[in-house]
């Protein structure tokens, strides 16, 4: 019958669309692994760049990205989780709360390069942190905040209301209930969100362009007021700004960045599925 034919055609079309969407993702990852893995060596990972970055390794960029991720976590994780607790456990249903939610949605939508401008204006120039790990981490933190807040809030809200009621009926204060019941139960979901947020921060280039990224710095940063090399910016530099750059080093850098990001993604996925299996509600 006609309509069954159209159903069959429609389903085939949708399947095709899904395949066209997914196959490039897999090929991108596989391709970078294949092209990049020959570049990976002890020297590549642990040495500083030499000869205008055309030789040597990318150690300072790896460490720089590591520092920036940690720095971002230090600022955004406590603040983000606290904000999520406020929204899930305390916030009344009123106009202020709606404004907070709107602000979070907007923070999530602001272009990353605008965060870069903001970081330049506030942290680098106004607060005189200079182009530094500190300024870049703070900039990335604010960018990461909405991701952490919304995923954490979702995780907290998923904790059954009945636990809270029972806890309060046993004489717990609101904060005791949060500390002893809600937070521990929501923790896996919060962790997943935190890691996914930090994963984004680790891969970002635009916010650190003018706030903390160094074009070439063949040593490790000495303090949080030093600029630093970072993997994503380094990849940008060697693929667009340096002529006659050996292709292998470019792919090798892309691969290391990809492993960094995919590794975090993998950890988040493992935490999530483990928690689901162990959940008592």
């Amino acid at each position, binding site marked *: 019958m006609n309509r069954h034919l159209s159903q069959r055609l429609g389903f085939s079309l949708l399947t095709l669309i899904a395949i066209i969407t997914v196959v490039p993702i897999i090929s991108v990852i596989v391709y970078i692994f294949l092209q990049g893995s020959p570049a990976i060596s002890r020297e590549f990972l642990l040495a500083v760049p030499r000869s205008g970055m055309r030789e040597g390794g990318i150690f300072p960029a790896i460490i720089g990205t590591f520092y920036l991720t940690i720095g971002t976590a230090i600022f955004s994780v406590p603040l983000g989780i606290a904000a999520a607790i406020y929204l899930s456990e305390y916030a009344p249903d009123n106009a202020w709360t709606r404004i907070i939610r709107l602000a979070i949605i907007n923070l999530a939508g602001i272009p990353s390069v605008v965060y870069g401008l903001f970081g330049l204006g506030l942290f680098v120039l106004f607060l005189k942190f200079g182009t530094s790990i500190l300024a870049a981490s703070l900039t990335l933190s604010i960018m990461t905040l909405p991701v952490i807040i919304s995923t954490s809030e979702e995780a907290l809200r998923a904790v*059954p209301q*009945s*636990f*809270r*009621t*029972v*806890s*309060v*009926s*046993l*004489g*717990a*204060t609101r904060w*005791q209930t949060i500390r*002893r*019941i809600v937070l*521990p*139960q929501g923790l896996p979901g919060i962790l997943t969100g935190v890691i996914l947020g930090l994963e984004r921060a680790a891969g970002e280039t635009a916010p650190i362009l003018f706030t903390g990224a160094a074009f070439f710095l063949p040593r490790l940063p000495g303090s949080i007021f030093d600029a630093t090399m970072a993997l994503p910016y380094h990849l940008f530099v060697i693929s667009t700004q340096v002529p006659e750059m050996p292709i292998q080093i470019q792919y090798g850098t892309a691969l290391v960045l990809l492993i960094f990001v995919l590794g975090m993604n993998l950890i988040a996925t493992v935490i999530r599925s483990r928690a689901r299996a162990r959940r*008592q*509600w």
Partner: protein
Amino acid sequence: MNKLVIENLSLQYADGTESLSNINMDIAKNAITVLFGPAGGGKSTLLRCINRLNDLTDVETMSGRIMMDGEDILNPATDTIALRRKVGMVFARPVVLPMSIRKNLTYGLELAGEKRKSKLEEAVERSLKLAAIWDEVKDRLEEPAIALSGGQQQRICLARSLAQQPEVILLDEPTSGLDPISTGKVEAALQELKKDYTIILVPHSVQQAARTADYAAFFLQGELVEYGNGDELFTNPQEQRTEDYVTGRFG
């Protein structure tokens, strides 16, 4: 002896569901007082006033007093934390907290700052025995409470509220999800408990109301229709509406 005196209590929720209008009743010590009637009559609302759990919900208006040992517990200055330690509650669905059986029982005491091992141990054993579940769980106290059956979980919940040695126990349809055997165990435990506690029970059926009540109060649409001695109320109700409900003509 009256443990609680409720005076002119009226309450309305913001969303318009359930309410109470001008409730007056005295609740006796060391007895089981049963609040029964069709759903939405205000029974649970009244329970949640007695431990101020309604503070968590959107209450539109509330007036009147609930005197407990001579003090108005609805007074905003009342220490609700201390109140809730004195008034334990068991809910319709057994809600064990996501932790071990032992931790479930010591939860309230630890919140109150009790750290002495011996005290906690003693409370666990005493309350589990009171709730008639000691023999079933004494060898598996470290296991997650969620692993127990529904009937066992509900008795854990009862034990949990007993661990703090409350003065009043509120039970909101505690056996609604349980099989007849577990229900019998809970009811038997309540008959033991009333020697030392004031028990207010919202039963899940008229039969249970009749079985357990020392005193019974019939609630209909937020109104206290009839209140009196359990045996009399079920055998010889004064109000037509009570009789209709008790004999199964509606509800």
